[in-house]
């Protein structure tokens, strides 16, 4: 069985986010990029499955331009067998889902692991769209996964509890922490980094797919203002401020 791990190349969670002067794009100067944390849980799960003899191959895939290749190399250094880069700068989740679906059609995988969302633009549409286009089963918010032959048992996070599902492969999973724990995440070692040099990294040309959603402009949230204290005997003023300034009542 082959596992495809779909990865987003996102700014490190401690990065200070700035936008270009016209607000049209992220200013990537000085930003360090990492494997999207939700995807990293999936990658680690895939490697564990391979080590347990449940999978024969783990492929890491990113849709992105050449600047994402260090992130793919890191996935290879951690243990993925090969990597695929679909050579495009996606604007919308529908494009990413379509391109990955086309890739999987030509190169079948029984299990596709995605993260529940990417932490850069908080996109979460790709896994569901991908499953639909593949005609595969889909499990969202997945926090546990076990395989037995061509069947999967999935543990999902739902409001106020957990849900256990069974599904048959092929299956697309949108996973998060719980698939594996943070302590199980892997740091690449030097031998892995050396081995990653010679592992295959295929670059695939994308088909023409129009973006269904186009970002126009980015703005940072307004910073927190200072607290205003209102005398406890002056409730009228509090009501007035909430009504006229904060406009919440």
């Amino acid at each position, binding site marked *: 069985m082959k596992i495809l791990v779909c990865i987003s190349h996102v700014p490190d969670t401690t990065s200070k986010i700035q936008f270009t002067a016209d607000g049209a794009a992220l200013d990537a100067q000085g930003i360090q990029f990492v494997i999207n944390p939700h995807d990293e849980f999936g990658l680690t799960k895939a490697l564990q499955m391979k080590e347990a003899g449940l999978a024969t191959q783990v492929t890491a895939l990113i849709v992105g331009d050449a600047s994402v290749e*260090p992130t793919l190399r890191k996935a290879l250094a951690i243990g993925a067998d090969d990597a695929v880069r679909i050579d495009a700068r996606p604007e919308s989740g529908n494009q990413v889902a379509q391109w990955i679906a086309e890739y999987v059609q030509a190169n079948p995988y029984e299990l596709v692991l995605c993260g529940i969302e990417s932490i850069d633009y908080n996109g979460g549409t790709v896994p569901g769209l991908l499953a639909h286009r593949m005609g595969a089963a889909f499990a969202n918010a997945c926090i546990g996964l076990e395989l037995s032959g061509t069947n999967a048992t999935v543990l999902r996070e739902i409001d106020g509890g957990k849900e256990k599902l069974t599904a048959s492969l092929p299956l697309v999973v949108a996973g998060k922490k719980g698939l594996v724990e943070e302590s199980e995440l892997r740091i*690449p*070692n*030097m031998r892995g*980094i*050396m081995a990653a040099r010679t592992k295959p990294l295929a670059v695939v040309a994308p088909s023409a797919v129009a973006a269904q959603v186009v970002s126009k402009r980015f703005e940072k949230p307004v910073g927190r203002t200072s607290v205003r204290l209102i005398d406890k005997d002056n409730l009228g003023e509090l009501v007035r401020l909430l009504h006229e300034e904060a406009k919440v009542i």
Partner: protein
Amino acid sequence: MAARQDLYQHPDYYLMDEMLSDEHKLIREATREWVKRDVSPIIEEYAQRAEFPKQLVKGLAEVGAFGPYIPTEYGGAGLDQISYGLMMMEIERGDSGVRSTCSVQSSLVMYPIYAYGSEEQRRKYLPKLASGEMLGSFGLTEPNFGSNPGGMVTNIKDMGDHYLLNGAKMWISNAPFCDIAVVWAKNEAGRIHGVIVERGMEGFTTPETHNKWSLRASATGELVFDNVKVPKENLLPNKSGLGAPLGCLDSARYGIAWGALGAAMDCYDTALRYSKERVQFDRPIGGFQLQQKKLAEMITEITKAQLLTLRLGQLKNEGRATTGQISMAKRNNVNMALEIAREARQMLGGMGITGDYPIMRHMMNLESVVTYEGTHDIHLLITGMDVTGLSAFK
């Protein structure tokens, strides 16, 4: 003691990351991740207790910090010298004592066995040293011969089927728990040779040096040889004379130049963050001129050292780095780090002397680093000799 979260980010004022390859950056980030996960949370406690965190040996080996530039066929990672430097920088950013363990293992034990050893010696020892199954130490300094190692009195006598080793070595990192020691001793003709001494050989003991105020999370001791029978096949056959141990020191000092840079950047990063959070006279202390002077001078010195060290790494990769160039970098960077640690300590006021922040530990560690592997003054004389052609040693 609850460790503070390690928020370290390296300063890169001259955008030097652009001069590193993607692989170099991955190596640096991987090492940093490991330090943040396994070293930062525990190191202060071990340093306070003056105990070596032995559990780190396995992690250091897994990351690949033992002999990263030794070829893969002997268990190393086969990386270049800049990769080795970046790893030492990140590990010393965590703690100079942990970096010392790596320097000794890589440059002072694995390097001489690789460069001067026989093929049998390489195959016997290097894979086990790389995997951390064996830990090594390096015996050159003696009680009466520190800056003048050529005067050593430790000696080997050819007894026909073995050598008889006598003498004592002092200030030896890893000594108390080393499995093997690369020991430098004079033969009957006064020629310096390296021999591999194994723990368990009769007459070989390793008493620990106590009461250190520096490198407290690293074990230091003596190597004492009382009529130790060393098999003939344990002599390093391919190089002798003082140049042999000095070649090891070149490799270790190169790693120290990078390591000290890491300690300096950690002190700067800590002080910069503190200066923006600590409020006095109703504003962050980072807004005051005297604090800005300290920070501006720190980042200037760090940036100069980053440029010097990366260039040295390029020369080392090309096999062109001279002993003089390595001395200059070791001397400059360690002194720079020590001065930054002292200034940073002052910026944190009373908090700077506590174990809540890494600065005082770095500062005390660097007092050893500025002394070992050639003192600050000796490196000055090496540079002086290099530029004048005249030795001031005797």
